[in-house]
C-alpha cells in the first residue's frame, strides 16, 4: 500500500511538472506568435543614442551603470548581504579543505599566475565600458587571487596576506563609494546616480578615461565584488 502511495505521489509530481511545462509552452508559443520586436523602442533608443549619451561603447555597461545604475546598487547590496550572512554563519575555526598539500609545482604556478590574474581583473574592471566585462566579472577575477592562495596555501596564509578586516573594509568602502559617486550627481544639481545626463566629461568615446563616472563606478563595484566573494569563499572554507 505504501508503495502504491509512493508511486502515486511520484506520478502526481510528474503530472504537476508536465502540466507546468505545457502551460509554459502554450504561453511561449503565443508570445512567439505576437512578434514583439517592433516594440523595443527603449532599447533602440539605447542603441542609437547610448554611445553619445553615456560615452560608453559597451551598451550593456552603460545600461548597467548609467541607465539602470540603481539596479546595480541593489545587486551589489544583495552580494554584500550574502557575504555578511556567510561571515556570521561561520564560527572561527580552522579549515579542513581536502587536507592534502600540493606539490611545489602547484604553488609555484599559483605564484606565477597571480600577477596575470591581477592584470586581467584590472583590465576587466577598467575597460568595462569599452569591452565585455565590467566590475562584476573583474571583481570575481580579482577574488580568485585570495581564493587560489587559500586553496594552495590554506586559509591562514591567505588571510595573512589579505586580512579579513581589510576585505570587509574594502567591501564596505566599495559600496559606500558607489553611493558617494551617485551622490556626486546630487551635489552638482542633478539627480542621484546621474552621469550621462549630468555631463560628467563623456570624453572621447573609446578611450579609457571616458564615459564620465562609469569607470569609477565599475572600479567600486570591482572592489566590492572582489572583497565580497573572497569573504564568501573563505567563510565557506572555514566552516568546520
Amino acid at each position: 500500500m505504501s508503495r502504491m502511495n509512493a508511486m502515486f505521489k511520484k506520478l502526481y509530481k510528474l503530472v504537476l511538472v508536465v502540466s507546468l511545462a505545457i502551460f509554459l509552452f502554450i504561453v511561449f508559443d503565443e508570445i512567439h506568435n505576437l512578434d514583439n520586436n517592433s516594440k523595443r523602442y527603449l532599447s533602440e533608443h539605447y542603441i542609437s543614442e547610448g554611445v553619445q549619451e553615456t560615452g560608453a561603447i559597451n551598451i550593456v555597461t552603460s545600461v548597467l551603470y548609467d541607465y539602470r545604475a540603481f539596479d546595480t546598487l541593489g545587486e551589489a547590496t544583495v552580494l554584500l548581504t550574502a557575504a555578511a550572512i556567510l561571515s556570521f554563519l561561520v564560527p572561527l575555526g580552522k579549515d579542513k579543505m581536502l587536507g592534502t598539500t600540493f606539490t611545489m609545482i602547484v604553488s609555484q604556478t599559483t605564484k606565477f599566475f597571480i600577477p596575470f590574474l591581477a592584470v586581467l581583473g584590472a583590465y576587466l574592471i577598467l575597460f568595462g565600458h569599452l569591452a565585455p566585462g565590467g566590475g562584476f566579472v573583474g571583481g570575481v577575477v580579482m577574488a580568485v587571487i585570495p581564493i587560489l592562495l587559500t586553496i594552495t596555501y590554506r586559509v591562514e596564509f591567505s588571510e595573512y596576506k589579505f586580512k579579513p578586516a581589510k576585505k570587509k573594509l574594502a567591501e564596505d568602502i566599495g559600496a559606500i563609494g558607489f553611493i558617494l559617486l551617485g551622490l556626486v550627481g546630487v551635489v552638482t544639481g542633478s539627480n542621484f546616480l546621474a552621469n550621462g545626463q549630468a555631463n560628467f566629461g563623456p570624453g572621447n568615446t573609446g578611450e579609457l578615461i571616458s564615459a564620465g563616472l562609469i569607470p569609477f563606478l565599475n572600479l567600486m563595484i570591482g572592489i566590492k565584488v572582489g572583497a565580497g566573494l573572497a569573504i564568501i569563499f573563505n567563510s565557506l572554507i572555514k566552516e568546520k
Partner: protein
Amino acid sequence: MMDIIFNMLMIFLVITAFFMVFTKDISTAVIALPIYGAILVVIFVILQAPGPAIAEAVIAAGLTTVFFVITINKTEY
C-alpha cells in the same frame, strides 16, 4: 552550420542537465555543473551576448561550482 551547432549545443545542455539531476552520485553531478555552465557560455556567445557570457563563465560556472565542491567537501567527510 551555425544553426546545427547551436541545436547540438542545446541538446547537450539538456542532456547535461538531466545527467546532473538524475545521477546518483553528488560529486558526479557537481562535476557536470561546470560543463553545463561552459555549454551555456558558448550558447551565450553564439547569441551575441559576450557580457553575460563572461559573467556566466566566471560566476556561475566557476564560483558556483567551487561553492558546490566546498559544500560536498564539508558534508561528506
